[in-house]
């Protein structure tokens, strides 16, 4: 019987890539990286590095047999810079040595001569110079230009939201082993095994079937290993292929933080118009996304920004424009929420600004404009099973008297202020690149009745294994400990989509469900024959026993599997799932891009120490529309974890580059993720509802709850206002203790 991953973790017995015992023959690779943000490589002097005892080889772009391109979604992303470097930390060459220390030492010995070019770090400046990853896109409904004249109140403003480092606990790492016949096997900490395979094949000029990528689990991903694990796996693969020896490449925390991309910082301009009662008539927004050096996933992220520009609200006239701006920073990338948090922050800022102007609490505007059943999103999709209002109302019941209590507290406390802010949520589920919404699964039943499942989902702490086991156990009606989820491997599952967009268990769960149903159908046939029953539909398996018309028989699961084998029935099934009814027409920016939406609402309460500018998020109450959970513990953990991660983005997690593009906050002593003291008490209630659009009526949960944390910003803003009514509200996340203190004492 197998233990769950959690049991192994708690015993320190689970294996991550860095835990794999390597032989002394293992070589170690480390990149020589650019120390300038933008420039041309004039010359590299490798002499000293080559002379270092223990250095085995050094490779540059010139050694690449295939294409020097690692971008999935776009071109222009080099594995090793061939001519031009675009950011500090960009690999220029790869050192291969007998120990990791030697490889690093070798990199430090290389002398690179650059011709320095102008470097730009700010999205708006890049925009001014026309440095765009792609032309801007606009989603629109109604006509904002005509609508302004009907508005009683119009407010304009600007917002900023900062970058965020993933801080997955396991840093980027890969092991590459040369196989016979030019093949390679990679053990990589990637969310995208198939993409990694594809890129390695492309770079090394090999057919994909010669490259096997295997992923046992990740120590956290959060999007940071969706696109950006590829670089390290490919460098290791290149070195292993060239040297024909196994190669390990592992980044330390500060290297990882310095070389890899983050959540995109956004700058935005908004204009919102409302009638006198607070009904939003028009909303216009322009987003400037700081993409960093290359496209990476920026355009897909930008698209999701556009999909979530309107938040959880119905707005009859809306125009959202977004542009991805190229700067000389490490390419920013996927991070839980994928552009949606940045969009919703602006929407909430606009509402907050309008409320301020109207002398209302923002919740008055929020509530009036929540999406209703049957409303159309501005991108053409109809809101079905819309639960924005239901979750808002259920949450209100838990807040009775709360605003009153806070007002009283603030009256009696001069140096401390409390505030409460609400955040309604609506998040679309599906890859917005429609073709990615596919998955397959391979299920084996062994003759002892134990079950092995392979699929395209990568376990990274989000509990997808638990959920897949739950699906299989339910369909086959067997004990969960009979089921094992195998590593994610490109030889067992081909062409898998990344585990991302919150729908790893939606897609793969459906594929597993179908495969198990196929097996069940043939097992029923075997049972019918064994029990001499003609009506196959009368056969049922329940808790590892065969029933005929609800009457238990003596035939157990194990015996049934034995009979199936002896009667030469296949005990393996392969299944494929593609999400139905989704499409999007980019020429019209309209369609049905999502399988469904996740709704919910959160209330965040903060206390602010107005003398010192310190604050505490005391409590977060959440009503979450989670469907019929496949694993309640997992879903609760995802909500709690996402909330706290979002809280970090809005409070203490501040990414600072110096003027030359070097990351200053490059370790955990400088970059502060929430600790146990910073984490609030979190109370979650679920809206118990079905979701016909996903496996066994469940709902995706990974990303959406991160956005509940947006209310933290506005709760803090309210608390500041309670102390300093003169403060001109600014929307500039994260709201660090520094910004809070300066706001508390700013006199206009």
């Amino acid at each position, binding site marked *: 019987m197998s233990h769950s991953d959690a049991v192994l973790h708690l*015993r320190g017995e689970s294996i991550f890539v*860095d835990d794999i015992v390597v032989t002394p023959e293992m070589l170690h690779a480390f990149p020589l990286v650019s120390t300038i943000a933008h420039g041309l490589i004039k010359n590299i002097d490798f002499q000293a590095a080559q002379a270092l005892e223990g250095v085995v080889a050094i490779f540059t772009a010139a050694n690449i047999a295939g294409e020097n391109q690692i971008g999935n979604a776009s071109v222009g992303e080099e594995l090793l810079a061939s001519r031009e470097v675009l950011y500090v930390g960009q690999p220029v060459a790869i050192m291969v040595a007998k120990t990791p220390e030697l490889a690093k030492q070798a990199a430090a010995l290389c002398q690179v001569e650059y011709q320095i070019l102008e470097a730009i770090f700010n999205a708006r400046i890049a925009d001014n110079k026309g440095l765009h990853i792609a032309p801007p896109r606009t989603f629109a409904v109604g006509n904002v230009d005509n609508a302004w004249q009907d508005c009683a109140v119009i407010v304009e403003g600007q917002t900023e939201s900062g970058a965020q480092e993933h*801080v997955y606990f396991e840093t980027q790492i890969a092991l590459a082993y040369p196989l016979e016949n030019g093949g390679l096997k990679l053990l990589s900490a990637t969310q995208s095994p198939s993409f990694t395979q594809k890129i390695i094949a492309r770079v090394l000029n090999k057919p994909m079937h010669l490259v096997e990528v295997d992923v046992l689990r990740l*120590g*956290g991903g959060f999007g940071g290993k969706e696109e950006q694990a590829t670089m390290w796996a490919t460098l290791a693969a290149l070195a292993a292929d060239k040297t024909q020896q196994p190669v390990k490449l592992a980044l330390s925390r500060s290297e990882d933080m310095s070389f890899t991309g983050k959540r995109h910082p956004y700058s935005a301009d908004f204009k919102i118009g409302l009638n006198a009662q607070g009904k939003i008539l028009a909303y216009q927004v322009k987003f400037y996304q700081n993409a960093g050096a290359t496209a990476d996933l920026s355009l897909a992220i930008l698209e999701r920004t556009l999909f979530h520009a309107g938040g959880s609200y119905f707005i009859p006239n809306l125009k959202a424009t977004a542009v991805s701006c190229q700067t000389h920073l490490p390419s920013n990338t996927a991070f839980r929420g994928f552009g949606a948090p940045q969009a919703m922050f602006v929407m909430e800022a606009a509402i907050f600004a309008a409320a301020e102007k109207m002398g209302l609490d923002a919740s008055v505007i929020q509530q009036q404009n929540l999406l209703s059943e049957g409303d159309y999103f501005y991108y053409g999709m109809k809101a079905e099973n819309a639960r924005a209002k239901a979750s808002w109302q259920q949450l209100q019941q838990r807040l009775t008297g709360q605003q009153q209590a806070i007002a009283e507290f603030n009256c009696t406390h*001069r140096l401390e202020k409390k505030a409460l802010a609400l955040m309604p949520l609506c998040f679309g589920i599906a890859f917005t690149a429609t073709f990615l919404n596919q998955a397959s699964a391979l299920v084996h039943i062994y003759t002892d009745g134990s079950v092995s499942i392979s699929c395209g989902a990568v376990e990274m702490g989000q509990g997808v294994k638990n959920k897949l086991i739950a699906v299989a156990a339910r369909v086959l009606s067997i004990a969960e400990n009979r089921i094992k989820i195998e590593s994610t491997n490109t030889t067992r599952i081909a062409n898998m989509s990344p585990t991302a967009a919150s729908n790893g268990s939606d897609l793969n769960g459906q594929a597993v469900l179908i495969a198990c149903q196929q097996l069940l159908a043939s097992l029923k046939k075997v049972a019918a024959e064994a029990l001499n029953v003609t009506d196959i539909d009368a056969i049922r398996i329940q808790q590892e026993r065969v029933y005929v018309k609800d009457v238990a028989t003596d035939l157990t699961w194990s015996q049934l599997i034995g009979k199936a084998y002896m009667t030469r029935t296949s005990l393996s099934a392969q299944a494929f799932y593609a999400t139905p009814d989704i499409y999007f027409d980019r020429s019209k920016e309209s369609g049905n891009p999502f399988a469904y939406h996740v709704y919910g609402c959160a209330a965040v309460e903060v206390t602010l120490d107005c003398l010192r500018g310190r604050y505490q998020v005391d409590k977060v109450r959440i009503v979450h529309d989670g469907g019929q959970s496949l694993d309640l513990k997992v879903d609760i953990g995802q909500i709690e974890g996402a909330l706290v*991660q979002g809280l970090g983005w809005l409070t203490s997690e501040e990414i600072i580059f110096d003027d030359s593009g070097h990351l200053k906050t490059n*370790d955990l002593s400088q970059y502060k993720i929430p600790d*146990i003291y910073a984490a609030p008490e979190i109370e979650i209630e679920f809206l118990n509802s079905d979701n016909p659009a996903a496996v066994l009526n469940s709902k995706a949960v990974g990303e959406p709850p991160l956005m509940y944390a947006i209310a933290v910003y506005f709760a803090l803003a309210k608390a500041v206002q309670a102390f300093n009514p003169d403060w001109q509200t600014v929307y500039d996340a994260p709201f660090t203790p520094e910004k809070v*203190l300066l706001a508390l004492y700013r006199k206009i």
Partner: protein
Amino acid sequence: MNKISATFILNHRQVTAKVALGMVALDYIRNLQKLTGSKQACRTGDCGACSVLLGRHEKGKLIYHAVNSCLLPMAAVHGCHLVTIEGLNTAELNPIQQAVLDNGGVQCGFCSPGFVVAMTAYFLNAQTANLDEFVDAVAGNLCRCSGYMGIKRALRQLLQQYPLNNSENRLQDLIERQILPDYFVAIAPRLAEIPILKTPSNHDAIMVAGGTDLFVQRPQLLAASQLKLLESNQEITLTQQQCRITASTTLETLKNSPLLQSLFPQFKKEMEMIATTPIRQRATVGGNLANASPIADMAIFFLALAAQLELRSLNGETRSVRLQDFFQTYKQIDLQAGEQIAALSFSCPPQPILFSFEKVSKRQYSDIASVNSALFLELEQETIKTAHLSAGGVAAIPLYLAKTCAYLQGKAISNEVVKQAVNIAQTEISPISDQRGSAEYKRLLLRQLIIAHFLKLLPDLLNAEDLL
């Protein structure tokens, strides 16, 4: 020779490691012993994923603490019981592991072994069951996945399940409750048999106390250098109104000192704002001062107590220097080659001491200060007889605000005096903008902290509204 031969008990086995003096325990246990349950996620002491228990005889008793193995020099492991997560496992999940599992405290699992180790350390050391202290015991462990609620639920459940009575024989008790495996029974006598290691002293050797700063800043250098591990001799004494603290006293010992807690009523809370439990277990007062970081918390604390340092040269000569003179320019201190800080002392006036320590950082706990400050006041009625004010993060060194102190001397407490003091302080500082905040912020923050000192110490004599 910069190798040592350290003998210790690793989980249940006695081992002798012939390794570089400056190798850290994490590399030894992961790379040489292939015990991969301890994870590395930062190597700067910030995350706790590498936590291990270090057990050793202290004053005749076997004491265990959780420490960060990424900053633990192997030289410090000799004669100890080093326990990794593997050494806590029994056939079934132990009650701590079970509680974390049942309460949903595990996601990607990379932090999980570290949490189990830290929680075990709490059970080994806690006097009474107290949730705040349990939380503090795991506050050096970060988790990026779970949001900590699962951990908190587990802590609450465990405290209910296992009320800790101040048992004399905690180890035995924990073995009976299956929180510790049986083999812990026999560790004490086995450790007693390991002979003491003599390290030859060397003029050029880098002095290592707790190593919590050195191994963050210069791990590569240390791996290849001569090191001199300073002996631990932790003493906090009070004689004739002189409080003396030996340099090797750890910050955790300091925090738990009944003497200091009685002198400074807020002491424990203030110390909890400094680093984390496992770092405090290793970090010493001497290291904090010698390090001379402009925001060193102990430096700021003791500057406001007008502390004196006792310095001792290699041949045993001692001299005394005022702490405020010890810090010269950025990271330059009044310390000759081979000289070490032996102790620190300050005079305690008759009770009650008016003393306030303030610290604000980006993250409230386990973070380096943006600005910190301390104030000591001695009053005669409402007149200031003596004032010592210090501030960190506002200059190149931990700063004693001499002009402000001189101004305050002899003044009757009033709002105006405080305001004036705040203004004078502004003329003494020269903060720079960096990751910890802009110069503008640091100026404002110091103003606030000085006001906070006075409001905290003399609430009845001042008007908060007017001071703001």
